[in-house]
């Protein structure tokens, strides 16, 4: 029966003997466990039932008041309303329907409502509280508190709903709170309280952990009828801290007003040094107050069905081909790789041929000979086709990511999109096909697979302007330690300087595509870049005005100012707005003017990143 090396019989015998010994030991141990369980659960059951009922310890979880959200100048954007609520813990109430009946003498509880509560209590843990009524005044509570001894399990506590101010302007940034979804429940037991609300979008969502505060608890000894015999321990909840945003409500309102005439648009204003977002506009807007706690289901349904998606924050979730604004990336990548030099001139005949495929320049008659400066100023496509081809997609994608594209930022705001910076690895993984040279050429002018959000474009602008790896941030340093001085970018200073000079030329030199961004008054210059990104294939063949609105090009403009000592960066995207130089540029110009106009009001000091500038009181001037 055995194989080639049968075991010595004493081996097997020893194993069996010892295994038997251990088996007997284990049987003894299990018997001991069984006996002990018998003792606890059968013999002494009555004693422990008594202990459990007469002298048990209850631990109640207390939720903390949610932190408020304030704008840069302490204007309140989100707060908690005054109000009280009545709750009941079924396991402490004894007979739930009797207690509810008694309670209905003091506050109106309909028959239907009572049945609903009883039904609900049966389906969940008896120790989870149920909400009987909320948004009550102190007067309404007084009588209930008076009769508390005859109302076991009933609690009254202070707790108001979330309130939003200036919601029309700030809705996309602040976001809103909503009921906790089952899937979102984490180990924090406070989330199982029925009144808990958590941030869904915006800063409410992005800073949820901080705003929620730290839960507290009450440990008390209670008897069988839920009466508290004595309090053993109370840990006070720690309220969520107030968050001060980098956003300026007044500026935000002005930016939105400037964009009001368009159907869908977005604009972002950032501080180029600190990354603080001063305004972040998305058109159309909505007011989260109208949909809070589903008080008005019709308003919610309308917003959800609306054709222009007002619920979406286009600044962080709108994905657009960056168009010619991407030439900043292609140009810088080529200069850094040394595949083109600043002096080298390339000929533009109005068309560019690569493997029998013809790629047109936007200017059909061509730009003749272009060096880097002229190509950037006049946005010559042919020059950047060639620059992209020479440099290759990997190096371009690397530069795009270095300047902030294709990524989600830890900016304190929820629901960002990362967009896409394509490269050969990505395409192989996504489609299983190799990258084609023609795709590099299209990507080089910000078309093809490339997609970005307005926030990312603003970050790119900041990084070019400051030479620092600036990260966007919506929460000020005092309330969040996350705002830090950025590290310098690893890009040659000489190439960066040439790029900046070319960006000034875009706005201020003859032939520049962004001349309509020239400041109307003021003694500063703007550096910028236009972008016109194609939506459909057909659009290049027809005049824009002949196309249906949703087939027209997107209009983009990014810029920073003052050009010599950069302070602010602006990115503007007008969906289907036509040419970047025609539509977006003058808007960006106006936003820059508004921002500089608001500038003297305690700017440098408030970010805590003023770089040695004198600290002055930061109140409204």
């Amino acid at each position, binding site marked *: *029966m*055995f*194989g*080639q*090396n*049968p*075991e*010595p019989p*004493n*081996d097997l015998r*020893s*194993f*069996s003997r*010892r*295994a038997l010994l*251990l*088996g007997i030991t*284990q049987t003894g*141990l*299990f018997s*001991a*466990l*069984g006996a*002990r*369980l*018998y003792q*606890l*659960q*059968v013999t*002494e*059951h009555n*004693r*422990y*039932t008594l*202990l*459990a*009922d007469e002298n*048990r*310890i*209850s*631990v109640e*979880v207390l939720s903390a008041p949610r932190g408020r959200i304030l704008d840069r100048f302490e204007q309140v954007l989100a707060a908690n309303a005054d109000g009280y609520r009545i709750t009941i813990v079924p*396991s402490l109430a004894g007979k739930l329907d009797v207690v509810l009946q008694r309670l209905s003498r003091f506050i109106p509880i309909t028959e239907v409502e009572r049945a609903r509560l009883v039904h609900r209590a049966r*389906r*969940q*843990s*008896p*120790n*989870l509280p149920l909400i009987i009524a909320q948004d009550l005044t102190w007067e309404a509570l007084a009588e209930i508190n008076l009769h508390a001894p005859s109302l076991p399990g009933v609690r009254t506590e202070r707790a108001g709903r979330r309130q939003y101010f200036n919601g029309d302007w700030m809705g996309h940034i602040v976001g809103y709170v909503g009921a906790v979804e*089952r*899937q979102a*429940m*984490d*180990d924090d*037991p406070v989330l*199982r309280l029925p009144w808990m609300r958590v941030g869904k979008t915006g800063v409410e969502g992005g800073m949820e952990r901080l705003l929620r505060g730290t839960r507290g*608890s009450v440990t008390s000894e209670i008897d069988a009828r839920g009466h508290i015999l004595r309090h*053993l*321990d109370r840990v006070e909840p720690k309220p969520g801290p107030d968050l001060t945003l980098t956003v300026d409500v007044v500026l935000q309102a002005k930016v939105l007003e400037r964009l009001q005439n368009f159907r869908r648009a977005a604009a972002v204003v950032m501080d180029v040094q600190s990354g603080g977002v001063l305004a972040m506009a998305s058109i159309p807007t909505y007011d989260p107050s109208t949909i809070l706690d589903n008080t008005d289901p019709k308003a919610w349904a309308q917003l959800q069905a609306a054709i222009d998606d007002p619920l979406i924050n286009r600044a962080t979730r709108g994905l657009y081909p960056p168009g010619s604004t991407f030439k900043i990336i292609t140009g810088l990548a080529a200069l850094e790789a040394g595949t083109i030099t600043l002096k080298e001139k390339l000929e533009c005949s109005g068309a560019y041929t690569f493997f029998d495929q013809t790629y047109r320049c936007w200017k059909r008659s061509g730009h003749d000979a272009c060096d880097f400066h002229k190509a950037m100023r006049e946005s010559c496509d042919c020059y950047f086709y060639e620059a992209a081809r020479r440099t290759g997609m990997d190096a371009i994608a690397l530069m795009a990511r270095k300047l902030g594209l294709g990524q989600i930022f830890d900016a304190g705001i929820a629901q960002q999109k990362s967009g896409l910076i394509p490269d050969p690895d990505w395409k192989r993984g996504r489609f299983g096909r190799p990258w084609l040279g023609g795709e590099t050429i299209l990507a080089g002018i910000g078309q093809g697979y490339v997609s970005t959000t307005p926030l990312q474009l603003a970050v790119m602008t900041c990084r070019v302007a400051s030479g620092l790896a600036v990260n966007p941030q919506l929460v000020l340093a005092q309330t969040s330690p996350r705002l830090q001085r950025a590290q310098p970018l690893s890009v040659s200073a000489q190439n960066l300087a040439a790029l900046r000079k070319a960006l000034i030329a875009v706005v201020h030199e003859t032939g520049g595509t962004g001349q309509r961004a020239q400041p109307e008054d003021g003694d500063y210059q703007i550096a910028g870049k236009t972008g016109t990104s194609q939506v459909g294939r057909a659009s290049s063949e027809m005049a824009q005005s002949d196309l249906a609105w949703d087939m027209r090009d997107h209009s983009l403009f990014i810029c920073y100012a003052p050009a010599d000592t950069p302070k602010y960066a602006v990115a503007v995207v007008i969906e289907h707005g036509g040419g970047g130089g025609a539509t977006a540029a003058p808007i960006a110009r106006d936003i820059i003017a508004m921002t500089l106009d608001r500038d003297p009001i305690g700017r440098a000091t408030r970010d805590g990143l003023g770089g040695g500038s004198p600290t002055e009181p930061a109140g409204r001037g």
Partner: protein
Amino acid sequence: MFQSGSRAYAPLSLSSKLGRIPWSLIVVTLAIGSIGVVSLYSVAGGAFAPWADRHALRLAIGVIIVVALALVPLRFWIAAANPIFISAFALVALVPIFGTTTMGAKRWLSAGPLSLQPSEFLKIALVLVSARYYQFIAFEKRSRPLYVALPMLVIGAATTLIARQPDLGSAALVALIGLTVMFLAGVHAAYFIACGAIVIGLGQYIWPRLHDYQKSRVMTFLNPERDPLGAGYHISQSKIALGSGGVNGKGLINGSQSQLNFLPEKHTDFIFTMFAEEMGYVGSMALLGLYVLLLAILAVMASRVNCRFSRLLIAGVAAILAVHVTVNVGMVIGLIPVVGVPLPLVSYGGTSMLTLMFGLGLAASAYVHRGDTIRRDELGVFV
């Protein structure tokens, strides 16, 4: 039949392998795991999130692992025993450097969303490597001092490493499991008696060096009433919960004691308390009965296999299971001090579940290939 022929490795076809898989083992495992799902559903106040759903998923994955491992030839496990143990040992050694600290102890390794407790893996790896060790040592040699010293050294190193995390509970368990395999391998009884004497002697030495929380756990174990709201709180609350459950229990989601938030680890180490309160004496005995059945199946499997390695492997896995159940249940009913040990297949926790399934897979593999015998020279480059 072909497995009794002269060739040591008559290769089994897939269908005959599948036919030899101990399906009763898998059925009982699933039954115990399902009790875990139900308990976790109840702990969450009648919700699948956040524990029950994931537990069910892990259970399903675990069963697939058992079946998959059962099909792997025995030769592979022998060859892989040393590398597996060395990796597990290295992982545990990495914990003090890269581990995450919770409640004053470093026990977890994290990589992105995954985090695991390498000390759990070490238990199985230790059984595997010990079984392999004795496969190639003649019975007469096993009690010679030199041949006893080597496994003792390995067990000692593993125990010390875990004890320093600090995780005294797991360290004691690892030592116990290692010694059990040595005992079953036939090492002379005198060594174990000497071991016992040394442990008692060491106790005198270690006691003053224990952490305060460990001391107080032992002290309040001896007299839980000493501090009913402090360290003895868990034990006395656990006993009240169990006792008030009575014969038939209070019903799912209705355990008034467990559902109150007085047990901080009620979804992991104290899940038996909750189950026993809600399902009563009938329920708790049924659960214990299922564990006994599982152990009995493993015992039968061990008696039918053909080589030393397989036998020790199956017995070692059974030992891991038995020790965990005994210590966990003993703890929650106040027979043993509170040491953080999960209840196999029922407590929430990915590492514990995965490790046990891995062990059961090894046992199943040993059983499926029970006709195989192994010679050292056939193992090739791995050894």
